[in-house]
């Protein structure tokens, strides 16, 4: 039986007042399990979930064949039986939207973890070269093995994994230093970017064009073949991230405090970085570098939810919302031309971020 236990707001008990309100948090107990839940985060996450669902269904309903919204909901939830549009929804459009949701969530979580770990609002999986490694791998596949499309995904994944491995080997010297990791990451990233640019000049124009399209980040043609492995990867990576992110709360009080409270700093940091890198790697392999999401989604989540808890779930949902809505806009807002989703998220996200920065600067927080 779950009982909701939160201390009453004011005293009124006899004897000395021993109650206090754990502001904004709810305590849940069920047997030996107890949870401390940020109520604001729960509310915001629920709203975001609704936004993602509505946005996703809307995205499914628009296109060459317009499908009524109600039909879409029926198809997606399975309630109310099937409709005529079953094929279009289930085979063509739903997997695309689902890919968008998963990719957005993965980028959002990855960015949030990196930003909290490094206490730097600019941190992003880019820094450790994950997206550049993926880009190099993908472009190499496109240029060298120009026909097969799933090889691009494999190439991207291989590229990012090798890059992270190389980064780890190079950055570890007398123990793990996240600052050194960032520096080595910048070095690797720049080299990889140069390599990618080089490949683009040595390829045929057709291949170069395909490569640039991939590099812009796109959900075009994403089928269930993408959704399945992506789901598995997220199932493997997200729960450990949630569990270890609990330590972030203590790590932000400073290294000494954290160590004094029993947090193994090196191990926690390395594990979290690895998980976040893994999430960014699979997301990039699936949809290309829609990496601006990793930068902006945590920032937006922070402004919605605050920083009282690790904020993993809100960041994930903001990321999903960004990608799904971005894809919707990319497909519809420009008439017949379909832009890659990565461009829309950057075109809309960057000015928003800049606006947030000027606001923060004026208020004095400076990002």
């Amino acid at each position: 039986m779950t009982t909701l236990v939160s201390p009453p707001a004011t005293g009124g008990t006899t004897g000395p007042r021993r109650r206090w309100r754990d502001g904004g948090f709810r305590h849940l107990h069920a047997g030996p399990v107890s949870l401390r839940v940020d109520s604001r985060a729960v509310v915001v996450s629920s709203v975001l979930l609704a936004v993602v669902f509505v946005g996703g269904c809307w995205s499914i309903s628009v296109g060459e064949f317009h499908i009524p919204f109600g039909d879409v909901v029926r198809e997606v939830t399975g309630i109310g039986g099937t409709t005529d549009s079953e094929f279009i929804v289930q085979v063509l459009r739903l997997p695309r939207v689902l890919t968008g949701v998963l990719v957005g969530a993965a980028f959002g979580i990855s960015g949030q973890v990196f930003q909290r770990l490094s206490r730097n609002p600019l941190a992003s999986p880019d820094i450790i070269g994950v997206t550049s490694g993926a880009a190099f791998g993908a472009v190499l596949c496109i240029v060298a093995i120009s026909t097969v499309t799933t090889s691009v995904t494999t190439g991207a994944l291989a590229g990012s994994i090798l890059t992270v491995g190389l980064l780890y080997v190079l950055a570890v010297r007398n123990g793990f230093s996240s600052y050194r990791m960032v520096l080595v990451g910048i070095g690797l990233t720049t080299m990889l970017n140069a390599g990618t640019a080089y490949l683009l000049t040595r390829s045929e124009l057709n291949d170069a064009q395909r490569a640039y399209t991939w590099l812009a980040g796109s959900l075009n043609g994403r089928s269930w073949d993408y959704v399945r492995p992506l789901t598995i990867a997220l199932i493997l990576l997200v729960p450990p991230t949630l569990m270890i992110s609990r330590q972030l709360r203590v790590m932000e009080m400073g290294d000494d405090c954290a160590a004094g409270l029993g947090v193994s700093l090196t191990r926690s940091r390395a594990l979290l970085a690895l998980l976040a890198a893994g999430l960014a790697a699979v997301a990039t392999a699936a949809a290309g570098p829609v990496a601006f999401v990793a930068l902006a989604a945590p920032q937006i989540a922070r402004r919605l939810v605050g920083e009282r808890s690790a904020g993993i779930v809100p960041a994930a949902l903001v990321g999903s919302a960004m990608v799904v809505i971005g894809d919707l806009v990319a497909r519809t807002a420009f008439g017949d031309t379909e832009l890659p989703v990565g461009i829309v998220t950057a075109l809309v996200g960057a000015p928003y971020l800049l606006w947030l920065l000027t606001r923060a600067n004026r208020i004095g927080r400076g990002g």
Partner: protein
Amino acid sequence: MTDATTGPDIDRPAHDVRLRAEHVRLAYDDRIVVDDLSIDIPTGALTVIIGPNACGKSTLLRSLARLLTPKAGTVLLDGEQIRKLPTRVVAQRLGILPQQPIAPDGITVADLVGRGRHPHQRFFRQWSTDDERIVTDAMEATRTLELAERSVDELSGGQRQRAWIAMALAQGTEILLLDEPTTFLDLTHQVEVLDLLTELNAESGRTIVCVLHDLNLACRYAHHLVTMKGGRIVAEGPPGEVITETSVLEVFGLDARVIDDPVSGTPMIVPIGRHRVPATDPHGNRVAAASSNGNGFGEPTASL
């Protein structure tokens, strides 16, 4: 049972000592700060470490707290090498309040104190009834219960420090180390914090070790005083034995008179500088100046 003024019987046999360092060498990169130092921390007492700047007192404390690995020698907790114990286990027996801890923006006192329970919590055991009770107890003991819902940023220096001590207290450890807990506080709050530490030691027999800057407060509150200079321990023991005019001169390079504190009877160091002091002979006896104007101060000599 310990007495707040005289402390526990420190002459107990050595196996009662829970925290000790043996022949440790402590260094930052290649710069050796402490070499071949050994110390036994008396259990159940309030130990204070003092010394001039850069003598290694904070460094020593950090090594005792497992924040700094010795380049040589070992630190032992309950007879085991502290380095080999899992971090979580150490955190359940020994708590440290470092210098200048960072309070995240906008958190409440209750939230801060609650984080002290981290070593006892798990992913599925985030807030048990025990946690609630212990946190409340900790806040009561530090008189921060009435501040529980306020933001840490808006507290005064003394209140904030009490909140941090409550956090360390909530950790539920029997040994508590504090690195300069009073350094940025005004006098009132310094006394407030030290009184609190005394109560924590007296009521539960907690072993407390802190690094202090103020010599006189150190003498007043310490059961066991350790003086350090240049990375070595110069003397340790009850303040009455350790603090003399010669020892003050040796450790701090300071000319001083040592008298009995009129309030507490502990040693009180009265510094002698170059100005604002009457003429004295080497024995500290005031010498009557050739043309005294009656208020005890000689007139300045013409050759100045």
